């Protein structure tokens, strides 16, 4: 009776060990030592566009070409490459247009320059317009009301012009 308890505990421990080691063994069999998840692949892929299927990010593109690209990203991640290294590789291989955000160089500068410049110009125009509106004389309450000649600004202007001659 005294020996039964340790024996049962040992059996239980071995059973638990076997149960918990199964998933680890299965994972070791199926994947590479540094297996990369789909989420990790997609986090890189969503910042890239395949030139074949324009305007569709690589992470949701369903073509064979995009599937090959995603597999390439997986291989690079497994080899220990960083996101930036992979993006540089893709630019070297396929050009700047694979990037979701164009790099700020050459003609691309216009993309970054024009919108803020146009907003600034719009702001200036708006500011000036408001200033002009504010400076304009208030409209008369009754437009049909007779204005005495000495108070009429147009009359005063004509008078000034005549005095000059």
């Amino acid at each position: 009776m005294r020996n039964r308890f340790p024996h049962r505990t040992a059996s239980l421990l071995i059973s638990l060990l076997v149960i918990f080691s199964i998933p680890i063994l299965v994972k070791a069999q199926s994947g590479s030592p540094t297996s990369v998840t789909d989420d990790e692949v997609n986090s890189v892929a969503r910042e890239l566009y395949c030139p074949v299927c324009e305007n569709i990010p690589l992470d949701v593109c369903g073509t064979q070409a995009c599937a090959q690209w995603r597999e390439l990203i997986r291989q690079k991640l497994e080899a220990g490459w960083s996101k930036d290294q992979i993006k540089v590789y893709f630019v070297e291989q396929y050009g700047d247009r694979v990037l979701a955000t164009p790099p700020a160089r050459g003609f691309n500068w216009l993309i970054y320059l024009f919108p803020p410049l146009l907003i600034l110009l719009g702001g200036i125009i708006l500011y000036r317009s408001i200033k002009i509106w504010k400076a304009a004389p208030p409209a008369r309450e009754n437009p049909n009301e007779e204005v005495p000649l000495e108070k009429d600004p147009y009359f005063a202007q004509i008078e000034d012009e005549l005095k000059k001659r």
Partner: protein
Amino acid sequence: MENQPAENQQISKKKKISWGHLVIWIVLILFLIVLGLGLLRSQEGPIGINDASPNFTLTTFEGEIIKMSDLKGKLVLVNFWASWCTPCEQEASEIEMAWQSYKNSDKVVFLGVDYVDTEPEARAYLQKYHISYPNGPDLGTRISQSFRIRGVPETYIIDQNGLIQFVQIGPFRSSSQIQSVIDSLLNQ
């Protein structure tokens, strides 16, 4: 005379306003020029018969550097393909078969340009179809952009003077079709 400073003030105010307008107009005109250039570029259309061939450099998968400018005096067939492109598979063996007829001639050169592809799959494709003429990746998609291709497969045949004489959009039907085009150009 009393009105002189007021007039000057008005003139300087007018000048200031015109400068502002000038800047706005310059920016708008620049914006329109950029838009127009972009539109022109997108509307350029494909490269056609009798157009001069773009001067490109192809680095093959074996590391050999081939410059179009060095191939003057030869008939050059440039085939754009990709391993993910099913119609390319239809013509791969046909192009290779045609190449076998000209590989010993120094008058004809075949070049394969691998468009937007991954290297392991591209190499497997070349091995699968026993392709022996020079092939290389279209690095930075520079070659395909210079030819303004619309997709793959596309094939361009360039004459001895560097002018495009034949364009095939889509796959070739047979090796004899390729040979008949090349032979007729060689006999001209």
